[in-house]
């Protein structure tokens, strides 16, 4: 049997983003505790852990969605491209969100046409030229493997699509502005198995172009999809490693219990 590398050599990967000593509070509830994580460039990194351990909270730190609610507080750093701390108060959260896209747990298309949903990000970011928008909408829908299904009805309401199609539309919406990192929060938890496997295939394709950070409740999904996996428990980052290593030879007892299905 080949020796698995069980301790990730962090210096060997090129990080797209690096979480450093991140603490997060909802009001006075301490939800993330000194979390550290490396998100390798153009790879898929999965966050796993029992429900309520803080995966979504961590994910939403990356695009500063927490800034929308005045009771949320955090300190620590997320260093992007080894250059900027995107959590710094000096950094405009809107700039951050333009470069980091997000796909939510339940498909959340806007009450607009298919076309306008994908064009939305381009428009809010100031793009006016119809030809440019047309072009980018088409490219995004193709990357999201939705183009063939919708090219004849771009003007019809997004709500008419099936759940799986809506989620791919949301992926296209995130892709349209060409972000460098896309955050996925349990993107398939509301979908049937076929739609789920479509989306998984899609993500495997996408990692050629973008870095992916995905929260998943399913260990099988992490194992199938992710290059790297991080296990969180009660707001702490317990273990982070290459997916195979984390599942086959976990270093930590809690990780082992979790991946062997002994709790959670």
């Amino acid at each position, binding site marked *: 049997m080949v020796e698995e590398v069980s301790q990730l050599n962090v210096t060997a990967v090129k990080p797209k983003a690096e979480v450093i000593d991140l603490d997060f509070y909802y009001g006075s509830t301490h939800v993330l505790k000194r979390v550290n994580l490396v998100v390798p460039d153009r790879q898929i990194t999965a966050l796993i852990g029992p429900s309520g351990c803080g995966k979504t909270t961590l994910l939403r730190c990356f695009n500063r*969605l927490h800034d929308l609610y005045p009771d949320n507080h955090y300190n620590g750093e997320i260093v992007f491209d080894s250059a900027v701390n995107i959590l710094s108060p000096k950094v405009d959260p809107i700039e951050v969100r333009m470069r980091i896209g997000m796909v939510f747990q339940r498909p959340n298309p806007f009450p607009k046409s298919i076309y306008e949903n994908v064009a939305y990000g381009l428009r809010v970011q100031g793009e006016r030229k119809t030809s440019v928008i047309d072009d980018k909408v088409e490219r995004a829908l193709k990357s999201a493997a939705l183009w063939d299904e919708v090219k004849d009805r771009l003007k019809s309401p997004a709500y008419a699509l099936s759940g799986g199609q809506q989620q791919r539309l949301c992926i296209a919406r995130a892709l349209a502005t060409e972000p460098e990192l896309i955050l996925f929060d349990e993107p398939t938890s509301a979908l049937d198995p076929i739609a789920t496997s479509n989306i998984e295939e899609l993500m495997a394709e996408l990692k050629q172009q973008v870095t992916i950070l995905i929260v998943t409740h399913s260990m099988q999904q992490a194992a199938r999809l992710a290059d790297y996996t991080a296990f969180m428990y009660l707001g702490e980052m317990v273990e982070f490693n290459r997916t195979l290593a984390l599942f086959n030879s976990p270093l930590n007892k809690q990780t082992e219990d979790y991946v062997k299905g002994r709790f959670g």
Partner: protein
Amino acid sequence: MSDPMSQAPNFEVFSRKRASRSVTERVIELVLLLAALSSVGTTIAIMVLLISESVGFFKEVPILEFLTSKSWSPLFDNPEYGILPLVSGTLTTTLVALSVAIPMGTIAAIYLSEFAPQKVREVIKPVLELLAGIPTVVYGYFALLFVTPLLQQLYAPLGTLVNGFTEKLPAGGLSDWLYNDVPLDLGGFNMLSAGLVMGIMITPLISSISEDAMRSVPTELREGSYATGATRFQTAWKVVFPAAMSGISSSYILGISRAVGETMIVAVAAGLQPIFTFNPLNSAATITAFIVQVSLGDIPHGSLEYQTIFAAGLVLVLVTLVLNIIGYFLSKRFREEY
């Protein structure tokens, strides 16, 4: 008993339960149906009353004269029965009111739902609701005694300016039009003041219904918008507003009905003079104002004067209906745009 389930002995208990449940269900359904029918019934009863009383009126007054004559003086010795002046008064005050209430109500709703911090909202909401609870007669006198003098002061320089200009023009055409429609001074009774105050009165109605509609838009939609890099305003205007459109448009439709049906403000501040004009600087009477005016006098039951109330009431219902239908189709088209 054609249900095969009920024949199988094993299922007897279940089918008995099912029968009793279906009785309760039927009773509930019936109660709901009656509740729904009672409002339909009331509407029908009102329509029947209006139409049957109007029939007598239309035996005396040809319907064509009623709909096309531009003069309304049913209480004079030499009565004329053209409804147009009342319709023009109603439409003009309504239009002035809506041009205040729809933008202000919508902006207030967007602010309260998407921008206002919790504390600000807690102060503004009750104040707005208080505004909606003030009796309309108070608004009427507010228009007459406060807003009209204010408007007169603001208007005076404009009137003087236009008048000076008019005098230099050769007679006829533009000069006549300006002379008639842009008076030197604003009268003590005018539709502008009544309409503006009516708009202020309707604003809280629109803002509170629209705000509820916008607040019930799911958070995921807002976050989806923010996540693409949208600002708070872009999110409010491009996502939350259209998503809440069905609730917002029903607030507009309610606002329209409220404006068309408003009585006291126009009766007090617009002058009760039936003039066929769409110029808000003029005084005018509306359908509702005429109805109270007649109802307050002592007019014998069954007389022609008395029946004018019902003919006017019928027109009021029709105007409201038409405006509602227009509003409905506009909002439907707007909604279908996405």
